[in-house]
């Protein structure tokens, strides 16, 4: 190249345009770094996390509902907004309508979180990949990417997803009691149960730091709902571990899956039918 100085306007513009383009390109490729890191350490078999709810122990006290809301920063609506729309309950109670045919869970109310299906309908239809089936079996979300099209809500056969119809507001605008481990979601974003993925990662992180294996005992009452249940009706665990309490419960003759005939492969098992 000759040593001619940059004098022409066109050349300056070219340089400017190219630099901006390069910067923009670098920004977009940043997205690749935000991809979820694989959860299992190298050499370990992948996990398949799931849950079991024993309906013969569950008193329907709804402690799981509020524990989940407290852990995952789902503030209540308050009186005014409650008149407009129902609250968000990642762990909800399925209250069967008296006129309809009953589900596999029978007539009475039952706790119902996200099923974390192995073949999730919601993941199939998300236009931007804001929800995905992680390699640990948890159907997780990237809230920042959600555009609020609500297709996943329509596609979920269990209708277990919730939309932020308005901006969540904390009582007195004071989010002091918010859990720092869980992001706050703005209006216009769909959210649902994450199996307390932040707690799962914490346990796996600690196991890695302490260089010890993850025990099933550490997992059984790990999510907020399982931890709080006064009747120990909710069990969490790794279905990929045949010795885990969850795997044994999943094989129990009392175990049923909701809408199993649809082939979505839900990983939440309900146990009922004692007597």
């Amino acid at each position, binding site marked *: 190249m000759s040593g001619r100085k940059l004098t022409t306007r066109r050349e300056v513009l070219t340089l400017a345009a190219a630099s901006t383009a390069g910067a923009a390109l670098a920004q*977009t*490729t940043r*997205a*690749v770094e*935000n*991809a*979820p890191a694989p959860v299992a350490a190298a050499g370990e078999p992948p996990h398949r996390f799931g849950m079991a709810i024993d309906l013969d122990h569950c008193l329907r006290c709804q402690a799981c509902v509020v524990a989940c809301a407290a852990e995952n920063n789902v503030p209540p609506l308050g009186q005014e*907004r409650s008149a*407009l*729309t*129902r609250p*968000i309950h990642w762990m909800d109670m*399925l*209250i*069967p*309508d008296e006129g*309809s*045919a*009953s*589900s596999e869970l029978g007539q009475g109310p039952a706790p119902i979180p996200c099923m974390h299906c192995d073949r999730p*309908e919601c993941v*199939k*239809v*998300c*236009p*931007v*990949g*804001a929800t*995905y*089936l*992680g*390699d640990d079996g948890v159907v997780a979300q990237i809230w920042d*990417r*959600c*555009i*609020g*099209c*609500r*297709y996943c*809500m*329509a*596609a*979920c*056969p*269990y*209708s277990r997803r*919730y*939309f*932020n*119809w*308005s*901006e969540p507001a904390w009582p007195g605008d004071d989010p002091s009691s918010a859990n720092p481990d869980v992001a706050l979601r*703005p*209006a*216009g*974003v*769909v959210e649902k149960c994450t199996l307390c993925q932040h707690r799962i990662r914490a346990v796996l992180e600690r196991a890695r730091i302490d260089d010890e294996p993850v025990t099933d005992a550490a997992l059984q009452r790990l999510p907020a709902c399982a931890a709080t249940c006064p009747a120990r009706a909710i069990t969490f665990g790794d279905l990929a571990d045949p010795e885990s309490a969850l795997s044994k419960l999943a094989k129990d003759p009392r175990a049923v899956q*909701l*809408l199993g005939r*649809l082939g979505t492969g839900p990983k939440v098992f309900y146990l009922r039918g004692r007597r």
Partner: protein
Amino acid sequence: MKPRLSVALVAFLALLLVVLGVGLFAFAQQIVHGDVVTGMRTLGAGGAVWGLYVVMDGFFLGLGVAVMACACVARFSRDRDTEAVARIAMPVAIACFLGAGLCVLADQGRPLAALRSLSLFARPQSPMFVTFSSVGAVCLFGSLVHCVLARRSDLAEYAKRRSVWQRLQRLLAAGYRGSRAEHYRRQKAGFWMSLLMLPALLAPLTALAIIFAVRPARPLPLTLLEVAVFILLSGAGGMGLLLGAAALVGRLAGRQAGLAARGFARLGKALLLTLSLSLPCIVAAEIAGLMSDEPAVSAYARALLGDVYGPFFWAAFACLFVAAMLLLRGARRGALGPRLTVVAGVLVQVAVLVHHYLLLVAWQTHGLALPYPPGSYAPTWIECAVVLGILALCLLLLLPSVRLIPFAPLVFEVQLAEGKRGDIRRTVVTAIWFLGGLAMAGLGFALSARVGTESFLDPIFAGSPVLFIVGLMVLVTTGAVYELWPESK
């Protein structure tokens, strides 16, 4: 011919502006307060998550695709009547596509984030990918290109006179001289573009039909029936709209600009055919639903006949039936005139709107797979205002078409067309352009589909959906390249 600037027209324009203003205000309320101001609510908790916006999106997209498809089909024949169909159809289609795009954008929880996220991360595995990418690239942009190319002769004529639009008209006319070679190229490009556009238009419509009709627990035969009904009814609705638009153009811009009676008759017959295909499918779908083992499906089918949705269902069915009967009678007597066909067209459009509403909303309130209590949905004034505002905007944007893409053609003569031999360079460039577009679209598609990386991670190149859309845009401008490439000396 210039349409007369009468008092009625001015009043109408003022009304449209007012409606647009109210719509903007309503949309601002929605942005500020969130979608809670609409009538939509979470499924299973008493509501429907998709409401008026998605219904209108389906309605407009269906109409637009059908109208544009009519225009493309009309391109294949050289008849003056069918030429009028194409001429009238294209601006209407563009307005419809614009309306569809705006409706669906208004529906997103975060519209600006939607533009960003879709551009960077959209994935073709979702049916929405096809709809959002095609509506912008193929439907809207493609129709515009198609339309401009078709009316270059009129634009060149207009560009001769001084006016505020003169520069734009000259730009779009792109040096039209009216030579025989240009006519030849116009016919060839028009033919091939129309041929390619047809499947390209059907793709988003089918995808939207899938979005409307595929439900968990709904058996495949029923889904296929619903998809077929959706597409057929969209076609019928489009024809109905076209009939109405043709009648209106004829009224406002003179009989020469509008459709001849023969054109109305032809369209009327096509409408009758479509209706006779859709009516049995609707009946079959409802019966299949009622007889289904799946409780969610039969509940939905029963709800359609029940207290809440029964009146709508029967009203829609009646409209379709009456329209079909009117058309049949007219066809038998050989008296398919403008009045009859336009009335039938209006009935059909009402029926199509109601059908889309039922198909979308009824299963959300009454057809869920788990035994949730039935919900209810009614649009609030915000949703109605926004939709009306979008409609007003589309109508307002049709106005410049008076000057830019005039309904009334100035040049009616169809000159002899003669191709130029040995124009190898043009062919080669066109081929390269086409293949390049195909390659870009293909690459964009593959990368968006997470080829080369795990399905649950990001695409290798974030922004590949944009590449796909650009590729599609390149494809639809192939005709323009062919027509506009400078002639070699």
